[in-house]
C-alpha cells in the first residue's frame, strides 16, 4: 500500500521529468534530420498551414515551424541553463560568505552590496545594458548580463540559510577545530546547501528563460538566432496575430509553457521531498 501511495504521490514529478527529457531530445535530434541550418530564411514555402509535410506549418520568413521550435527550445534551454549556473555560482559565493563570516566589517560590506543589488531597477538596467551591446550579444553574453545584474535576490536567500546553519553546534565544533571560513563552508555546509542549490538552479532556469523572452520581445537580443522570445518578436513584426497565422506562435508557445510547467512541478516536488527528509 505504501509503495502504491508513493508511486501516485510522485506521479506528476515523474511525468514532468519524462516530459523535460522528451523536449530536450526533440530539440537536439530534430535539427539533425534536416540538412540545412535552422537559422536560414526562405528555405520552405511561406505561410502554409500545418500539413503532412510541415506538421506545424511554415512562417512568413520561410522557416519550418517544427524545426524552428526545436532550435528555439534548444537555444532557450541552453541560455537558461548557462545563465542559471552563473547566477547560482555568484549568489552562492557572495551570499554564503556574507552569512558565514565572523568578520563583522566584511559581513556588513557584503550585506550592503547584496541589498544594493536588490533595489536597483533590474529590468530597465538590463534592457539598457543589453541594448548597448545587442549586436555582439550571443547566448553566453546575454546569460552573463542576466547573471551579473540579477544575483541579489538569491544571494539574500543564501545568506539567511547560512546564517541559520551558523548557529548550529557543528559550526562551533568546526570553528574551534581550526577550520577556516572556506573550509567550513565547503566541508560542513555543502551537504545542506546542495539540496538548496538544486532547487535554486531549476528556479534560475525558469527565471532566466523568462527574462530572455522578455528581452527578445523588446527586440534587444541577437534576433537571427531563434529562441522562444525571438519567435514572438518576429510574429509581432509580421503581424501574425492579425493575419491568422496561428500555427506560427501557438506551437512554440505550447512547448514553452509545457516545459516551464514541468520544471516548476519538479522544483515543487523537490522542495517537499527535501523538507520531509530534513525534519
Amino acid at each position: 500500500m505504501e509503495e502504491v501511495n508513493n508511486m501516485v504521490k510522485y506521479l506528476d514529478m515523474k511525468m514532468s521529468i519524462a516530459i523535460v527529457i522528451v523536449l530536450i531530445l526533440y530539440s537536439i535530434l530534430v535539427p539533425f534530420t534536416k540538412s540545412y541550418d535552422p537559422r536560414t530564411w526562405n528555405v520552405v514555402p511561406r505561410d502554409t498551414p500545418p500539413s503532412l509535410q510541415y506538421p506545424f506549418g511554415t512562417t512568413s520568413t520561410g522557416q519550418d515551424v517544427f524545426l524552428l521550435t526545436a532550435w528555439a527550445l534548444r537555444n532557450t534551454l541552453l541560455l537558461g541553463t548557462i545563465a542559471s549556473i552563473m547566477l547560482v555560482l555568484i549568489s552562492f559565493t557572495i551570499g554564503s560568505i556574507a552569512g558565514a563570516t565572523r568578520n563583522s566589517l566584511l559581513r556588513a560590506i557584503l550585506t550592503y552590496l547584496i541589498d544594493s543589488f536588490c533595489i536597483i531597477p533590474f529590468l530597465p538596467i538590463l534592457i539598457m545594458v543589453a541594448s548597448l551591446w545587442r549586436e555582439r550579444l550571443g547566448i553566453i553574453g546575454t546569460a552573463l548580463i542576466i547573471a551579473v545584474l540579477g544575483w541579489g535576490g538569491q544571494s539574500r536567500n543564501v545568506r539567511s540559510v547560512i546564517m541559520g546553519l551558523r548557529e548550529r553546534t557543528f559550526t562551533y565544533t568546526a570553528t574551534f577545530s581550526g577550520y577556516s571560513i572556506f573550509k567550513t563552508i565547503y566541508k560542513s555546509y555543502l551537504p545542506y546547501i546542495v539540496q538548496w542549490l538544486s532547487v535554486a538552479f531549476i528556479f534560475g532556469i525558469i527565471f532566466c528563460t523568462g527574462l530572455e523572452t522578455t528581452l527578445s520581445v523588446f527586440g534587444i537580443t541577437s534576433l537571427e538566432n531563434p529562441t522562444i522570445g525571438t519567435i514572438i518578436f518576429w510574429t509581432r513584426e509580421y503581424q501574425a496575430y492579425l493575419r491568422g497565422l496561428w500555427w506560427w506562435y501557438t506551437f512554440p508557445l505550447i512547448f514553452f509553457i509545457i516545459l516551464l510547467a514541468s520544471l516548476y512541478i519538479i522544483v515543487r516536488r523537490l522542495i517537499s521531498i527535501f523538507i520531509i527528509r530534513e525534519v
Partner: protein
Amino acid sequence: MSLKANLSKSSLMPLMHNIIERIILMLFTIWTGLTIAFLVTRLSPRNPAEQLLSRILAAGTFMRPEEIEAMRRTIMELFGFDKPLWEQYIYFLKSVLSFRFGPSLLNFPVSANDIIAVYMPWTIFLMLMSTIISWVIGVVVGIFMGIWDKRRSIRAIEYMFIIIFPLPYVVLALAFLIIFVGILRIYVGVAYITHLTLSLETFLAMLSRAWLPALSIIVLSIVNWAMGSLALARTAKKEPYVFYGVIRGLPTTALLKRYVGKNVLILQVTALALSLGNIFGGALVTEYIFNYPGLGTVLYNSIVSNDFNTMLGIATYSILGVTIASVLIDMIYPFIDPRVRYGGGE
C-alpha cells in the same frame, strides 16, 4: 498589549538604536543603487548631446559652422557632458538631492521633472489598483486552498495555477492582447488626458484605458499571491497548535480566521508593503505591450533614445520607493507581530 510592551522603557532604547542604524544603512544602499544606475548610463558610447544637435540640424534650419559650434557648446554645457566624469557624478547627486533632474533630451526643452509629473499618476493608478485587488483576492484564495487542500477541486485549481505561475509576464500579456482585442474585440480606451482633474470623467477615461493591462497584471499576481499564501498556510497547518485545534473540533471558520489566516496575513502584509514600494518605477513591460501612457513607457523610450536625465529621474523614484518601503516595514513589523523584538527584550 503588545504595543505597550514594545514601548516600555526597557525596549525603547534598542529600538531607537536599531532604527537609526537602519536609516544610515538605507542611505548607503540608496547611494549605491543610484551610483550603479549612473555608471550604467555613462557606459553608453553614444553621446546624447550630439544626438540632440543632429536632430535640431535635421529639422532644416540653416546655420553657419560657428553657430553650430556655439550651439554644441551650449547643449554640452546644459547636459554637463563637457565636464569630467566625476563632476558629472557630483552634478547628478546634487540633482537627486534637489529632485531636479534637468532637461529631458527626448522632449527637449521640457524638464524631466515635468514629464515624470505628467505620467506618474497614470502609473500609480494602474499599479495601485492591480496590486491591491490581486493581493486581496490572491491571499484569500491561497488561505482557502491551504485549509481545504485535500479536496479534488482545490487540487485542480492548484495545477491550473502551476501552469500559469512560471510563465513570463510578457507571454501572458500578449495572450491577453490577442484574446481580448484580437478575438473578442472588447473596447480598450485610447484617450489620453494630460491635465488630470479629480472628476468622475477623468477616472472613467483612465479606467477604460487601464482595465486590460490591469487585468493581465492581476491574473498573474493573484496566482503569485495565492501560491505564496498556500505554502504559508500549509506550513502553519503543521504547527502543533493548529493540530490541537483540529482535534478539539473547532469549526473551520475559527481555524481559518484565527489559526491559519492570521499567520499567513502577517507575512503577506509585509510582502504587500514591499510590492507597494515597487509601484513608482512603472510597469515597463505592461506599459510597453499595451501602449499605456505611464512611467514605464517613458522609461523605455528614454532608454532607447539615451535620455539620461529622464531615465535617472525615474530610477531615483523607483529606488527610493523600494528602499523606504522595506525600511518602514522593518520598523512597523514589531508592532504587527508581537513575537519580533529588536535587541533588549527578554
